[in-house]
């Protein structure tokens, strides 16, 4: 998908986030993963790690070679997306205590991904 299309998707998901609070922590975390993945794809395409014809779906499903390139070329973005993905299992698919705090951490990581993609208009809500 083109970077303009990724930007439109990410901004749309972030607008939907404004309808949620951290008490909706499962949805907030998932929105951060979805929007964050679009921002991440922009960085992947811009750095040439992956062409626009090959979007990443989840950071842990990157090929070994692409992941190594990402660790070199976009370590902050990769770490932020990994961190959001790591939050999903215990708080979206699981019931560990602390979901609202986890949602706030996911929002912070989403902001890092947004900055990595060079997007500066507004800030993610929730």
């Amino acid at each position, binding site marked *: *998908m083109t970077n303009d*299309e990724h930007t*439109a*998707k990410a901004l*749309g*998901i972030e*607008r*939907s*986030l404004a*309808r*949620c609070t951290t008490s*909706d922590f*499962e*949805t907030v975390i*998932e*929105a951060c993963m*979805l929007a964050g993945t679009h921002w991440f794809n922009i960085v992947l395409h811009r750095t040439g790690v992956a062409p626009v014809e090959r*979007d990443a*779906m*989840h950071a*842990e*499903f990157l090929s070994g070679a692409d992941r190594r390139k990402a660790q070199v070329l976009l370590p902050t973005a990769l770490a932020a997306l990994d961190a959001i*993905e790591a939050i*999903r*299992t*215990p708080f*979206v*698919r*699981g*019931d*560990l*205590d*602390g979901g609202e705090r986890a949602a706030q951490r996911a929002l912070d990581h989403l902001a890092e991904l947004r900055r990595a993609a060079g997007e500066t208009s507004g800030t993610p809500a929730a």
Partner: protein
Amino acid sequence: MKIPSHLAKFRRLDATLARLDPIEDQELWIWTAMNAGVNLLNAALHRCGATADTDSFHTQVEGVYAVPDRRDATMQDRMHAPGDVMHVGQPAIPGPLPEAILRGSEALRVIENLREIFVRGPRRARPGEVRSWRDAYDTCVRELSSQAGAPPLP
């Protein structure tokens, strides 16, 4: 995960979904409807004995579960028999299953199949399309609630 936790998550996700618009918020509407439905499906499967209500959480990799140690909130990956499903058919659960679970699963699959086009892809929904999304969600909730021991929603 245990049935009461699945039902609590379903209720929270369903309440969030009510604040989302399937056209304006199409990505989050689809994803939240899917997650709500998966929790009901897991509760229903556990309740009929098709899967076990193991205290573990499905990871991103089919068949791999994170088992929590609740004393220190840590987790360890394990592979064990289901357990929670991640999506309809992931992993496949051998039958026979109650007809209501099969009908609810088919409705949930309709929502899951929207992900590639409308969440990960660039397509915007047209107003006429979302009626079938709402119908699928209503069917999913009605059929699976009847098997999950979930009280009717207000």
